C-alpha cells in the first residue's frame, strides 16, 4: 500500500490544516482520529485545540502561532508513526426517536416519492449503526455516516423557516438531528427528546467524533416520559463500548 501523506499547511495566522484524500469513509475517519489524537498530545489543550472533520484535522491556536516552521515539522513527524487505527476507542449510543406523523411531517411525502411504506422508512432508518464523523453547523449537530441509499432524498426546494429542536431529518445522503430550533431544508421524519448540547455541562455534548449511534423507535408516551426525565436531569442514555 502506498503511503498517502496528507497535505499540511497553515490556515491563516492561528491554525494549521492537515488534509487527507477527498473521500468520506470510516477507514479514513479512523486514520484521521488516530492522528488527531497523536497531534493533540504535542500540545497543551488550553492553548491549542485539535479537531477533525471527514478528511481533515485542524490545529487551532488560541493566539497567533509563534514558530510555524517548528510546529509544522513536529506535526509532520507524527505521520512517521505507524497508523494503528485499532486503538480508536468509541461507544455506541441508543438514541430514542418518535416517528409519529405529528413529528415526522415529511414521512408521507417520502413514502410517495420513494414508493415505500412509512413503516419501511422507519425500519430502514433504524437499521444502521451510524458513525459520528464530527460536530459542526450548529452546537451539538452530529455529522453522521451510514444512511441507507433507499432513503437518500433531496432537500426541500423551499427550506422551512423553523424546524423544531430534536427534529430528525434526511437531506441527500445524510441524516441528522437538529440540536435546537433552526431554519432548515431537510425532510423531517421524527423527533428525538434528548438534549444534544447543554452549555451548562462541563462537557456540553454526550457524544464525540468517532462514536456510533443507533436510532430506537419510541411511541409518543415514551417520548414524553424521556423528555421529562431529560428536563429533570435523570435520563440515562444507553451506551456500550464499541471499537471503531
Amino acid at each position, binding site marked *: 500500500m502506498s503511503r498517502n501523506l496528507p497535505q499540511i499547511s497553515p490556515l491563516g495566522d492561528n491554525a494549521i490544516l492537515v488534509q487527507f484524500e477527498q473521500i468520506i469513509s470510516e477507514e479514513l475517519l479512523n486514520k484521521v482520529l488516530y492522528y488527531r489524537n497523536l497531534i493533540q498530545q504535542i500540545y497543551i489543550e488550553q492553548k491549542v*485545540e485539535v479537531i477533525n472533520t471527514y478528511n481533515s484535522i485542524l490545529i487551532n491556536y488560541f493566539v497567533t502561532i509563534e514558530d510555524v516552521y517548528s510546529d509544522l515539522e513536529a506535526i509532520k513527524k507524527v505521520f512517521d508513526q505507524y497508523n494503528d487505527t485499532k486503538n480508536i476507542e468509541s461507544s455506541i449510543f441508543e438514541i430514542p426517536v418518535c416517528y409519529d406523523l405529528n413529528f415526522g411531517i415529511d414521512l408521507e411525502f417520502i413514502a410517495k416519492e420513494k414508493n415505500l411504506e412509512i413503516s419501511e422508512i422507519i425500519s430502514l432508518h433504524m437499521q444502521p449503526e451510524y458513525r459520528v464523523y464530527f460536530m459542526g453547523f450548529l452546537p451539538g449537530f452530529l455529522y453522521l455516516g451510514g444512511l441507507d441509499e433507499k432513503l437518500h432524498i433531496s432537500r426541500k426546494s423551499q427550506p422551512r423557516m423553523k424546524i423544531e429542536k430534536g427534529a430528525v431529518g434526511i437531506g441527500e445522503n445524510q441524516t441528522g438531528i437538529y440540536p435546537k430550533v433552526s431554519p432548515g431544508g431537510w425532510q423531517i421524519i421524527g423527533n428525538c427528546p434528548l438534549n444534544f448540547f447543554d452549555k451548562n455541562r462541563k462537557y*456540553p455534548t454526550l457524544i464525540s467524533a468517532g462514536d456510533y449511534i443507533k436510532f430506537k423507535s419510541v411511541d409518543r408516551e415514551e417520548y414524553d416520559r424521556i423528555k421529562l426525565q431529560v428536563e429533570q436531569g435523570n435520563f440515562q442514555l444507553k451506551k456500550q463500548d464499541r471499537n471503531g
Partner: protein
Amino acid sequence: MGEVKVLQPGLFSSIQDYGRFGNMKFGVPASGVMDRYAARTANLMLRNNANDAVLEITMMGPKLEFTAATKIVISGAYLSPKLNTEEVKNNTILEIAKGDILSFGRRAYGCRAYLAITGGFTTEKVLGSKSWYEGISKYQKLEKDLVISYKEDLAGRIETNAGLKFNEDYLKTSEVEVYEGPEFKFLSETQKEHLRNSTFSIDQNNNRMAIQLQEQLQNDLKPIITGPVVPGTVQLTPSGKLIVLMRDCQTTGGYPRILQLSDKGIRTIAQKLTNENINFSFQQSL
C-alpha cells in the same frame, strides 16, 4: 462593584473577549472581538490582560452611565466619544467618577470601537468565555436599561506604558492581507488575476458572522467535502459570491475556501462599512 447602565443602546454593541476557545469540537462558534489589535491595545493600556472582556461598539455608540469609579480606554474606530459634555480621545486612559456619562457621536473612521475597563467586565462566563453569542450567552447585544458589572477601581492615575502606541493605519487602508486558501489552487488563472487585481466592496450583508462582498467571481468549482473553516476564511459560493467568515462563523463549511485573511486582514476588514472598497494584498504563505 460597579455597573454600567445602558441609557441608550446604540446600533449594536456586545461584550467580547478573545472568544470561546476549545469548543470547536462541539460545533460552537468561537466568537470574540472582531478586531483583536484594538481590544488588546485598550486592555494593555489599563494593565489588563490582552483578552479581558471589553465592549465592542459598532458604528453608532451607546449612552452609558457608570455607577462607580474606574478607568476606561476606547480604541479602534473613532466614534467621537464624549465624557459628560467633554469630547475625549481614543487610546488614552479616561478616569471615570461615579455618575459619569459616556456617549458617542459622529463616526469619523473605522466601524468598531472597543471600550476596555480596569479589570475587564465581570459578566457571566459560558464555556470559558464572556463573549456574547445568541443561544450561548444570556444576552446578544446591549439593550436599554441593561446593566453590565465591573469592579470598582479607586486607585489613582496610572502611567501608560510609553511603548504602547496604537497604529491607526489599518483603519484607513483598503489593503486586506490574505494568503491563498486551501482551494485557491483549483481556480483558473483568470479567476486568480481577478482576485489579485480587482477592487471589491463590502456588501450590506455584513455582521459578526460574515462579511459578503458585492462583486462576484465567475465560479465553476465543485463544493468540497465539508471541512474546517476559521475566522478570515473566504468562501466562494456556487453563485459566485465571496463570503469572508468572521468571528461568529460556524466551525465547518462546504464551499471552496479560496482565500484566508491574516490577523491583520481580519481586523482591517472588520473596520470597514457597507460600500467601502478593499483590495486583496497577497502574502507569501509557506
